[in-house]
């Protein structure tokens, strides 16, 4: 479905909607009117896009993005791809669960791995990681926890269970606690091939 025709229809039907076609998809400039666009595409007789195939988030360093692939099961027509971009600092996108029940788990998955908050999602919890996990693993700036160096919490736990912790490790733990830092592994510079 070529994006120009879809863009034209949307502007005709919804009036002031900032749309920009990016490669083969349609960028909804302002995140807030995403539900309006999706609702129109779902109910309009010409489109009937009643099947949300996949909700994918990705991290482009200066913004976070969510891509929606919409299909119509009724008319068996091809994908209309919507795209929403939000700043990294406070990523908020209105949730589509009220329109498409299928987005429920996928939005939770994106929240868990990227930290994009989907407003209006009935039960926005982490789905892959355990509750106490901090950080969003799929972001490009995510640093893994360095498993070699011990933090003060680990040292206490080891000593409580009768394990003799070497002096150097204990000193490193105390120093980390004073600086208030977490033991994070630096990003191993992957040779770009």
């Amino acid at each position, binding site marked *: 479905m070529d994006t120009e025709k879809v863009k034209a229809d949307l502007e005709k039907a919804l009036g002031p909607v900032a749309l920009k076609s990016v*490669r083969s998809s349609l960028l909804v400039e302002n995140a807030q009117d995403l539900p309006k666009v999706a609702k129109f595409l779902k109910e309009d007789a010409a489109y009937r896009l*009643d*099947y*949300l*195939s*996949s909700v*994918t988030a*990705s*991290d482009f360093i200066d913004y976070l993005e969510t*891509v929606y*692939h919409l299909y119509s*099961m009724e008319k*068996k027509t091809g*994908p209309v*791809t919507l795209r929403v971009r939000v700043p990294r600092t406070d990523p908020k996108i209105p949730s589509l669960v009220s329109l*498409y*029940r*299928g*987005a*429920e*788990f*996928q939005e939770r*998955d994106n929240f868990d*791995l990227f930290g994009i908050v989907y407003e209006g999602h009935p039960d926005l919890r*982490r*789905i*892959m*990681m*355990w509750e106490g996990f901090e950080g969003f*693993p*799929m972001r490009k700036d995510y640093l893994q926890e360095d498993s070699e160096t011990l933090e003060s919490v680990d040292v206490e736990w080891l000593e409580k269970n009768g394990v003799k912790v070497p002096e150097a490790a204990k000193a490193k733990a105390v120093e980390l606690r004073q600086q208030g830092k977490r033991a994070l592994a630096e990003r191993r510079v*992957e040779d*770009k*091939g």
Partner: protein
Amino acid sequence: MNKTFEAKDVNLAGINSSLLEVNIGPQHPSTHGVFRMNAVLDGEVIVSLKPVMGYLHRNHEQIAENMSYAASMPYTDRLDYFNSMSNNLGYALSVEKLAGLEVPERAEYIRVIMAELTRLINHIAVIGFLLNDLGAFFTPVLYAFREREKILDIFEEISGSRMMCNYLRFGGVKRDLSPAILERIRGVVTAFPRFLDEFETLLTKNEILCMRCQNVGVLSPELAINASITGPLLRASGVNYDIRKVDGYSVYPRFQFKVPLGPKGDVYDRYYVRILEMRESLKILDQALNTIPAGEIMSKKMIPFLKSPRNFKPPVGEAYARVESPKGELGFYVVSDGTPQPWRYHVRAPSFINLTILEDMCLGQKVADAIIILGSVDIVLGEVDR
């Protein structure tokens, strides 16, 4: 309508019986992997059921972002480890779409043959495990695995490994099918219907199976479409949506086959739609084996990259290709930034999304029903947790 016991009939106000909260899983004989269901039971009837997953989460998508395109092909085998060939096919299609590669005729036919053989394996294994959850003590599973062995031997002969095939490459396949192998595949394909008939006499009209499976876990077509359910689950509810027909990817439009649809969308329909789908796959395999053309199996542009996969740099852009894997729509969304490593790699896993409405199907049913509803949804945790 199979009258099941509704808690509402009996007035429990007088009795102050509390609800029993049971964790079914993650270590449980019939959750098909490390999958947990927080079930709240009123006697045997399920009042609420929250799925919990993530125990097998390896962050396959981040691993793929730190490796070259070809290096993450063996990892796609481990997504849904029951059908590695259709995972490979999905990934290969999305990268070929991204890089605009042409696949020679013979390679396309080989891919269709491999995908359909994987569909046979997956469906009989699923039916076998469903009967295991129903209590038939391993007999259907072992009949199914006896047939599965024959097909896995063929995979081992061709790709080198039974389940982790890593057989497809971008632009073609790794090794050609010798005439001897084609004969062996034809032998398996002709012997399969006889096994299917025997399997059906054992199961389809079995009164206990019918009593246990009919009108259990009913899924309405509207809810199925709205919840992005795909695969045999959707077609059992009567929605005619098969990606081999809709997208017509690879050389599927050249084959005549039908799409079976179920009338009611309960566990029995999902079981029987899978058996009918196997018969359709056998038709496709027959036609593919008869009309497979000769020719080379790798596109010219990709032969230099066989020796040095790290130098394969697709153009900047993104591509989303989807495949009708035996569990549903398996999509691969790949974003390239011109370097040999993908910028973003996302897998649209059918089992993960088919679980969205597990609770809706299980409310009001019994514990025994919840187990077979989960069995009929057919999840594999490698794909759910990625």
